[in-house]
């Protein structure tokens, strides 16, 4: 009996380890081949060199795409934080008819196929003649980033003890001052988490970028996409590693902020 349990347990462990290895392997492989000194992607790389990183950081085209991505992601983070925060406050602290509908509307981009949003906005932007502008892409990315902000900020608003705010009020603070000095500092991890999350959501997006950017001013993912069609150039591996570091670091910080949030205040 016991032997059967442990042999089952062993089989489970082996299977799970294999699945986990497959999950991490592609990322490790890209990481390693990005340091190859050869012209071709070789695994394991026959040596170590930073030549493909030099190729990336020395190339005007790649740098322009990187700049576009950072600018768009930064602006998206700001826009979605402001809008997402307003929606969260309305959802948590107000009662009004159609609230469930509002929540459904705001959260639906999370499950709606992104291509639908891309096509719809493409039709709109062509009509408004703003296709390919930075602002237009920021708006599109905000639509898909706001649900994450709302998810994080509403969770934090619910767990915030409102009696703290009332205490500040009864001690003579104005409503604005109470919010500024008591509520906002408590929401700081959620605000940071929401901002980072929307930054990464924008930074990683490919589908909206494919439809809504100009070829002369692509985001980083779109530039990768274009280059992948043409060559298997190790520069793409270097760029991919760079992108992975940015998004993993960003979302890891979100997780840390969430942990802080969960600690009793």
């Amino acid at each position, binding site marked *: 009996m016991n032997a059967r349990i442990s042999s089952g347990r062993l089989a489970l462990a082996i299977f799970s380890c294999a699945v986990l290895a497959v999950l991490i392997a592609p990322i490790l492989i890209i990481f390693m081949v990005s340091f190859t000194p050869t012209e071709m992607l070789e695994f394991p790389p026959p040596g170590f060199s930073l030549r493909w990183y030099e190729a990336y950081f020395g190339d005007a085209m790649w740098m322009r795409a990187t700049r576009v991505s950072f600018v768009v992601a930064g602006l998206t983070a700001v826009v979605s934080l402001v809008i997402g925060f307003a929606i969260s406050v309305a959802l948590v602290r107000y009662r009004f008819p159609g*609230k469930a509908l509002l929540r459904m509307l705001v959260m639906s981009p999370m499950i709606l196929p992104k291509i639908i949003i891309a096509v719809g906005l493409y039709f709109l932007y062509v009509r408004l003649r703003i296709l390919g502008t930075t602002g237009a892409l920021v708006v599109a990315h905000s639509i898909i980033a706001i649900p994450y902000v709302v998810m994080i900020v509403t969770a934090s608003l619910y767990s915030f003890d409102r009696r703290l705010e009332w205490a500040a009020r009864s001690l003579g603070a104005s409503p604005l001052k109470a919010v500024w000095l008591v509520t906002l500092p408590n929401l700081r991890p959620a605000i940071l988490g929401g901002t980072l999350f929307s930054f990464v959501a924008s930074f990683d997006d490919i589908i909206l970028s494919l439809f809504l950017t100009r070829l002369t001013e692509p985001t980083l993912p779109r530039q990768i996409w274009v280059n992948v069609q043409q060559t298997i150039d190790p520069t793409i591996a270097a760029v991919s590693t760079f992108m992975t570091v940015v998004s993993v670091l960003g979302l890891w910080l979100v997780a840390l902020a969430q942990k802080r949030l969960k600690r009793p205040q």
Partner: protein
Amino acid sequence: MADITAQLGDTAASAAVSSRLGWLKGGRFPVFLVPVLIFYALFFGYPLVRIFWQSVYGADGFTLIGFQMFVEEPAYWMVLVYTGILGLITLAITLVCGYAVAYWLVTMDKGWAVLLMAFVLIPFWSSGLVRTYAWLVILGRQGILNSALIKFGLIDTPLAFIGTNTAVVFALAYYLLPYMILSLYSVMNGIDRNLLLAARNLGASPMAAFRHVFLPLTRPGVLAGSYMVFMLGIGMYITPAMLGGPEQTTLPLMIAIQINEAMDWTFAAALSVILLLVTGSMQLMANRFLDFERLWGGAK
């Protein structure tokens, strides 16, 4: 992200408390929402309405040509069927692998589980494009797998992995597996393990305890994970586009081709409406089984 999902349960509880405190009785519409609603009407509502409108509006006014083209051509039907089957196979693979991994992680030493969680979270946090590109590097004609097979003398000429169903299914399952693992893990983590011990004490075999106690309790995680994987799976664009050939055309891919190459907006819009109807009916079905109030941090 795992933390967020875990937190949602608590928020629902505190929501109940705050509404009982009844700070604001009766309705009062928050005025600051007006610009937000205008933003959503213009950049989310209008585009969706526009897709419906565009699908029945051609060069000479009202038309159903887009839908007619779809209905009359079996090849287009096959694309829809292929998309659905792809979603289902991906779902089956992620469910089996995800359930095993999540169960293993939940039942092991906590310290180790946190460490091994990195193997799930790092891919989950990485960009989908990068992770798909990685499979191109591995499975390509001159890719790592082919080079390795040739070096060890197993094959003489490189095998064509790209453009096969296997490559697309595999990469899609790879992309979606972390979603499944995380939603199962967060539910399994909340199950009181004493229930299993109680079942064992009452004479159930480990297998029976698992089947009659643990398995039913993980139902919410299975449903939420399956829902997420299937919805994301049928809407995926980059995986079939990068790793598939003409045979692996999915509905999202066909929409993109109509816009970028064929420039047929009416047909593209009709296909988008069909994709919307498919996901919409999935959503209606899911509404019956899933507690979205909890999934999305219910605001009461």
